[in-house]
């Protein structure tokens, strides 16, 4: 019988914690942001989602967003997130994958 004792290679991680936002009681009358990172196809999914939300929930309004920086994928900066948060009640996003 033999024992091999070794050191654990896996690093501890810095933990982050974010409290989820309160959900909306209803989507009626809500202003909904549609965020697309510009990866191919994501815009078509948001187009259909907007149409379905309009059909089902009265008084909804929509705003379209993409990130202000990036290339294949466009990302939101902190300023982008501040602006979106000030303008909408909820966000549907797609990164296309």
């Amino acid at each position: 019988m033999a024992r091999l004792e070794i050191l654990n290679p896996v690093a501890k991680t810095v933990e982050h914690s974010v409290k989820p936002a309160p959900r909306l009681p209803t989507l009626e009358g809500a202003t909904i942001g549609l965020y697309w990172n510009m990866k191919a196809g994501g815009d078509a999914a948001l187009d259909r989602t907007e149409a379905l939300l309009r059909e089902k929930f009265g008084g909804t309004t929509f705003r379209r967003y993409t990130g202000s920086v990036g290339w294949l994928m466009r990302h939101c900066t902190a300023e982008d997130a501040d602006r979106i948060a000030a303008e909408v009640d909820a966000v549907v996003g797609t990164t296309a994958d």
Partner: protein
Amino acid sequence: MVELERRGIPTVLFTAQTFVHDAHRSAASFGLAGLPLAVVPLPFTNQTPRDIQGMAERAFDQVQAGLTRPVEAPKAVERPPLDERLRYDGDDLLDAWGRMQTDFLARGWSDGFPLVPPTERAVAALLRSTRRGPADPIATLEPGFGIATVEKLAINAVMAGCGPEHLPLLIAAVRCLAEPKMYIRNKAMSTGPHAPLVLVNGPKGRAANLNSGMCALGPGAPSASNTVLGRAVRLTMMNVGHTYVGVSDMDTIGSPLKYSLCCAENEAESPWEPYHVSRGFARDASTVTVHFVYGICELHDFRSTAPDDLVQVFATAATNVAQVGTGLWLIGRRADPRSKTEEKEHNTLFICPEHAQVFAKAGWGRREIQAALYRAARLPFRTMILNKEPKAMATAHPELAWLADHPDLPVPVVEEPTCFDIAVVGAAAGRGAYFYGAGEPVTMPVED
């Protein structure tokens, strides 16, 4: 999405089934493990609008629920064992070692090749090669926000087969990985085959017996030092940065380059100043450069004796539009939204000594090659835009909308001439290597 939740805005994110684990893990690393998803069967990319609309319709209930129902905490959070020592019993040490390999594979901690056991004694031998203490943090490594202490790097280096001479080089490489401009989160987690190309310059690379000549990128005994250092970088990305396949590394095809891709520059046979000197370091400094690359193409030419002819051949490698970085500048720059760093897409050329002499005899240095390649490596706009999202180009470069009316106009493959990085590597015969890069290289000095 997590940043919007932090600001009090409920969100839901369309996610393909394949990427659900990745999305949960990514959201958890940013602090919100239960981020609501609307799961669809396939990625939207390469799907017809009709198919995408159908997927959106079938996921509509999840969209509503994500915005209106309370967020549920995930059932279980994966944690590596807290025990800093692991024990494997067997009939003999070889049997115990086999059990260690099996366990590491099951946990995802292995690159697939047999690992050297990181015993306390072996790790201690590496730790003596640096003035830093074992607990000293070198960096926090994304995507998992792993704390890269010197000891954790040494453990992974031992597993890769490294000796004490490699640890300072690995520390420098990890500092490259953690540099904000590297934006490693993107490269580690992508569906693309991003491989860290590690190029070492200076006396510490020579002291570590890194091969810069024949078959520098391996395999074989002359490149053994290169192989283990490059492997240590990959294992560090995995076990320190928490870049695990299928969890946080979503590479579609993968690449053998991701196992190990490392060499030194052949400074002795270069007609030019060493690569690191061209990047502002002192000639006697030792440096490590990391450039993430997607793939490699040979630069073969036994015939040309004039620089312009060689550049024409090199340009054929550079004008491969199937490679994601080719012409990517048309739709913007790789950018980390947190640090607001931006990267231009670079490509690295390993020019063999014989080709380097063809250029040098004509009085050409790096700058002349870069300028000539920038002029030669162009493609018609209609070809360049084939695999790029037109709306992204309209967003990034609205001033270039006129190109749509001139589809046959040749467009450069990179943003500017300095996007070609040039090092001299290899032995005799006219065969170099063109690496299709992902973003910009980062260079760090090697410290004791």
